[in-house]
């Protein structure tokens, strides 16, 4: 487990500035383009003046040219396929798919090619691509909202990353771009602008596959990632007033999955809730809960609980049909488990 970002540069090591998560990701891409001429960006509307749907690529085509920061036609299959082909020729492409629900359009390229080419070639082909996508915006309706990370966890050969803070977004994105395997980097729309931190200005990387304990606690482990980390932290403050001490473990990456840190936490607290925005049924929490139960059966004081979205498409009605797990639900579940 790590709790701090380790700088890998000698200059600007200590310099920080206040950044949103979106700006932090822009900084990661800027440094990657600057540091490695083989890094290229592909995606719809990513060039200036549009600068991407969340403005994460703003300014980069002006700085590095539209040869390397390349706006594409609305062709998700061609975007990912082109990224794969360029990767086969030694490039490190970063492809943007505007919304995670659009993954269905290019799923063949991601799951049949990016994820399998290393294996199918007996290790001869290396696909160092990063696919950036966004999730978590309810106001567009069911085709722009869903958290589909379980699809990719279930496909051997692709890494899955979802940051919860600006510092981690920058350090994890830098690691994805430098990684020799395909990485899916999921950006939460709500966090992109609400998360602001003092973020190191220089280049640093946070290793993939290392969970982070965002809040140590003694009574119950909340295993979570992405935006739900903030739900868990808020709930922990509420429950602290009742004398309940939550530990919040931020997985940060789902593949590689730091199960050792999960087990360490739950072995200590003996109770666990897995919390995420993805659908509970067959979601990431199902795997994690099953693993906790298999490995810590004799040490658990209560059943392992899962909290996520219900089994239905994402509804529109922005205020009338909220469907993501709430702090109240988490608090109630925690109280229930403390009763065992």
């Amino acid at each position, binding site marked *: 487990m790590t709790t701090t970002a380790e700088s890998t540069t000698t200059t600007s090591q200590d310099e920080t500035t206040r950044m949103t998560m979106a700006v932090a990701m822009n900084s990661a891409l800027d440094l990657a383009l600057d540091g490695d001429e083989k890094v*290229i960006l592909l995606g719809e509307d990513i060039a200036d003046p549009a600068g991407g749907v969340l403005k994460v690529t703003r300014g980069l085509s002006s700085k590095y040219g539209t*040869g*390397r920061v390349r706006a*594409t*036609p609305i*062709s998700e*299959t*061609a975007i*990912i*396929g*082109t*990224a*794969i*082909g*360029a*990767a*086969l*020729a*030694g*490039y490190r*492409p970063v492809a943007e798919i505007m919304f995670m629900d659009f993954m269905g359009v290019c799923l*063949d*390229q991601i799951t*049949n*090619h990016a994820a399998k*080419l*290393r*294996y*199918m*070639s*007996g*290790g*001869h*082909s*290396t696909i160092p691509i990063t696919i950036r996508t966004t999730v978590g915006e309810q106001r567009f309706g069911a085709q722009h909202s869903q958290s589909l990370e379980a699809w990719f966890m279930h496909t*051997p*050969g692709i*890494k899955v990353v979802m940051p919860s803070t600006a510092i981690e977004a920058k350090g994890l994105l830098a690691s994805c771009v430098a*990684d*020799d*395997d395909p990485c899916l980097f999921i950006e939460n729309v709500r966090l992109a602008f609400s998360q602001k931190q003092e973020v190191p200005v220089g280049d640093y990387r946070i290793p993939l*596959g290392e969970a982070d304990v965002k809040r140590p606690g003694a009574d119950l482990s909340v295993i979570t990632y992405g935006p739900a980390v903030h739900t868990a932290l808020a709930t922990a403050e509420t429950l602290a007033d009742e004398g309940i001490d939550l530990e919040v473990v931020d997985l940060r990456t789902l*593949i*590689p*999955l*730091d*199960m*050792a840190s999960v087990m360490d936490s739950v072995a200590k607290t003996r109770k666990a809730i897995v919390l995420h925005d993805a659908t509970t049924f067959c979601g990431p929490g199902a795997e994690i809960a099953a693993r906790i139960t298999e490995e810590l059966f004799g040490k658990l004081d209560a059943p392992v609980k899962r909290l996520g979205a219900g089994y239905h498409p994402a509804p529109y009605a922005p205020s009338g049909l909220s469907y993501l797990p709430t702090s109240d639900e988490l608090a109630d579940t925690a109280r229930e488990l403390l009763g065992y």
Partner: protein
Amino acid sequence: MVHAQSALEADAAETALSTADLTQMYRTMRLITSTGEHAVGEVKAGRLKSAFYPVRGLEGACAAMGVAMLTEDQLVSNYRSLGDALAKGASLRSIVAEIYGRADGTSKGKGGAMHIHDQSVGFVTSTGVVGSGIPIAAGLGLAAQLDGAARAVVSVFGDGTTSIGAYHESMNLASLWNLPMVFVCQNNQWAEHTPIAEYAASTDLAARAEAYAMPSLAVDGFDPIATAQQLRTALGRARNGGGPTFVEIKTYRLTGHSGSSDYSYMPTDELAAATERDPAPTFRRWLLDEGVLDEQALAEVDKEVIAEVEDAFAFAQDSPQPAASERYTDVFADEKVVSAL
């Protein structure tokens, strides 16, 4: 749109074929026929459990591509890739060992007949999903363009592929970005078990390229010299910054869709007419008639090919099975990611 005339009339200096080229083409055709028939025979005999897609009928188209492409040019093929792989110079022993799923195969036996590759000769990858290799080839083309390199990328696919979205997205993207590519459509008249007239609203596949502002031509795939010359022109255009070309090579599948499938659904008159033009024997007769090679030289090539194919199959059959530990390698660069899950 340029429609190629008979090969034998076109002899522009830059596309002219030398005796060495013609000999190589004949050798490649024989190698493809012999290897393919050997593999199908092994499948039908039950000694080889492989979904192998035969390439009979494509020998001339593939051999033409082999002499037209330079070593540094790159190729992305599909599941019917044996001819493309051999034409590009991939190792026959490694290919056959891969079809057998053995440790000495191109992918250590983990890829199979549909996923042959040999990066050392620019045979970058071959894909099992129709059309999916085309955007990947576009990415190789983008890399060549960004590198400022004078190399071309060829994407090879069948006529059935022109119905899928990946093809259309890639045609548009390649033309828009002026990528150094040649789209080679091996039109064997069949999309698996469906004839072209039953799946294509327009069977003039080359004409479709006009919609993407891409130069295109159609050439008789049973005329390997015309095919090679047209491909040389298209490849030269790509290498010189002239952008992509769509080349429809009109041929005919001389067997069923897969190695062991029934093909009684194929009209016997069509099949018989195409078989009359079977590429390797037809080309052999032409070489003899034109005095390019004499019977002794041709017989020597035949003999060498048979020996090479027998050697490759013996090599593959003797190659060990992949080690059990190979199941979990090559999932990621770092094997610990898998073991920690």
